[in-house]
């Protein structure tokens, strides 16, 4: 009993005693190197790095709870040598630093900050330049990644990494980050209950945001612009996607969102503009698309096979080359109360709902599905004529694929 009490007292005393700040600078400080400060620190200490260029790499923090902050103008140059920080600890803060020149490797995932089994962390105001991986976070929980800027200079998918890469993580908040010119902007693999908001992801080679086997996540108010293939959500359940903007994702295999094997997701208030394909849905079940706007896309929505019980309601389809491309049976998917700019019907009883149903799939989009080269005939008079005759008496397009209550005016939210 006495021993136990002694240990407890010792613990408490070390806790209080360790609240000291270690200052690192090039001259006139106790510590000249960051690693030196880390090595002589106690758990719970603060390390303050004064401004200057520090040519250090592989800064290892092992089982020490540290709060590391930099002055404005603190730059850590890893000189293409391994990791920036390599951390395995609880209650970690890394703030206000610039880390640059991360080594490119084809066998190891070198990152500016590597967190392994770390809980309660905060990574804030970090600028990573010339990154291979930005933040690589593995088997960690309850963290915040806020207000960071990560950019890479890789030229191909093979020699570039992801800006923020989460592997087996839970309850992570990723907010207000700017990620560009990487492979994936933000990548969650086996991650759950995470919240991603207000990020700006652009010019990434593969996806702006990428989910793999990650359930119960939410992302909102993000902007994804001109990425190789927009956002990919794959093999995940219960993803909520609100108020995001997907813009200018152009290319032969480029989408606003690629949905692959997704169940029970919800898309609400998103804007899809100038994408080759707005949403590419393949094997998606029980997804609700409510109040989204699709504007000037090549295809607004492209539905492949094996999609069941999806509801498309109150969306705006504005001036897309094709509103919908559909393969397979209708499979209890529902289109209702959408606004279609191509709708030519009338509303005699003035209840705001068109009196004749709208068929979003045109014969031409069926033909283009079958013979892709026929896309060169887009907007030809002949195509308009056959589309019209198909509209009058459907033969090829699914007969029950109709919006029975198309809206007469745009949905606003």
């Amino acid at each position, binding site marked *: 009993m006495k021993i136990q009490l002694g240990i407890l007292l010792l613990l408490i005393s070390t806790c209080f005693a360790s609240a000291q700040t270690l200052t690192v600078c090039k001259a006139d400080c106790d510590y000249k190197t960051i690693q030196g400060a880390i090595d002589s620190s106690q758990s719970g200490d603060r390390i303050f790095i004064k401004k200057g260029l520090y040519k250090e790499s592989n800064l290892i923090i092992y089982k020490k709870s540290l709060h590391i902050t930099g002055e404005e103008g603190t730059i850590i140059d890893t000189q293409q040598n391994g990791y920036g920080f390599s951390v395995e600890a609880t209650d970690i803060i890394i703030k206000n630093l610039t880390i640059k020149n991360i080594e490119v490797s084809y066998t190891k995932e070198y990152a500016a900050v590597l967190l392994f089994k770390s809980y309660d962390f905060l990574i804030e105001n970090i600028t990573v330049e010339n990154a291979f991986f930005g933040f690589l976070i593995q088997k960690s929980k309850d963290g915040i990644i806020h207000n960071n800027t990560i950019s890479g200079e890789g030229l191909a998918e093979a020699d570039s990494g992801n800006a923020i890469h989460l592997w087996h993580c839970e309850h992570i908040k990723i907010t207000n980050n700017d990620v560009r010119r990487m492979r994936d902007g933000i990548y969650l693999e086996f991650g759950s209950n995470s919240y991603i908001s207000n990020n700006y992801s652009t010019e990434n080679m593969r996806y702006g945001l990428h989910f793999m086997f990650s359930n119960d996540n939410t992302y909102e108010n993000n902007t994804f612009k001109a990425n190789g293939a927009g956002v990919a959500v794959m093999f995940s359940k219960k993803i909520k996607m609100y108020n995001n903007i997907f813009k200018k994702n152009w290319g*032969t295999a480029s989408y606003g969102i690629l949905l692959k094997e997704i169940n029970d997701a919800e898309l609400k208030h998103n804007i899809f503009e100038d994408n080759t394909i707005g949403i590419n849905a393949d094997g998606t079940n029980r997804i609700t698309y409510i109040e989204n706007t699709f504007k000037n896309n090549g295809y607004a929505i492209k539905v492949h096979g094996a999609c069941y019980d999806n509801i498309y309601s109150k969306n705006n389809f504005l001036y897309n080359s094709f509103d919908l491309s559909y393969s397979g049976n209708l499979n209890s998917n529902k289109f209702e109360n959408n606004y279609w700019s191509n709708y030519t019907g009338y509303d005699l009883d003035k209840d705001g709902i068109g009196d004749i149903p709208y068929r979003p799939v045109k014969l031409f989009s069926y033909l283009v599905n079958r013979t892709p*080269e026929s896309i*060169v005939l887009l907007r*030809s008079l002949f195509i308009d004529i056959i589309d019209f005759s198909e509209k009058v008496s459907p033969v090829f397009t699914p007969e029950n694929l109709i919006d029975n209550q198309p809206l007469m005016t745009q949905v606003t939210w």
Partner: protein
Amino acid sequence: MLKILKYSFFDLMRSSWSYVYFAFYLLLGIVLLFLNNDLSKAVITLMNVIIVLVPLIGTIFGVMYYYNSKEFTELLLAQPLKRSSIFLGQFLGVAISLSMSLIIGLGIPFMAYGLFKSNAIWDFSLLLVVGVFLTFIFSALAFNIALSNENKIKGFGYAILMWLFLAIIYDGLFLMSLILFEDYPLDKVSLIGTMLNPIDLSRTLILLKLDISALLGYTGAVFKQFFGTSFGLITSFIMLTVWVVLPIFRIVFKSKKKDF
């Protein structure tokens, strides 16, 4: 040649048909802008109209003008004038006056609506350039048909048939052959097929500006090169020029040999 051009031009400028044509475009422009309230959307609608109507009107005007001024042409032929300059002068007179009606008729409403402040100005100018090209191509083709046919009714018939073929039937046959041979690689064939029809060619040219996002959805490498770079734009313009030059050559050639 310039004198004949001038004469034909002012002759047409005085005729009521030019005014009707001009008024039609003026009205079309105003109505489109009034209904759409959006410049870029109006440009798309206008494209559909221009691609179909400009060739039709060019064809009919060309044939009509040739047959109507036949007596005058014969009078001119009795003078010491080069044959090529007589016919080229007449052709250019028709083509230029039609192009003017088009440009001014559409230009006025769009300018009044604030075209210069909008970023649709490039789309709109491309549209006008394509319209002018189509006018030249189809009035040249019409002159060819009229030169080859003494019979007015036959000449008109062939001219309308030519328009119908290039505007609608060609695309139908094109689509059918694409579906028929869908097992083969078709990207080159489909691009060549587009090049061989001036209406399709102009349509593609405008699509390059307006619907590029849909066109890029197709994965063929040839398509990607054609639509994704300025290569497509340049090739299309070269082909359009070829389409103007070839019929004009035939006018010169045919008129030299023709027995009046």
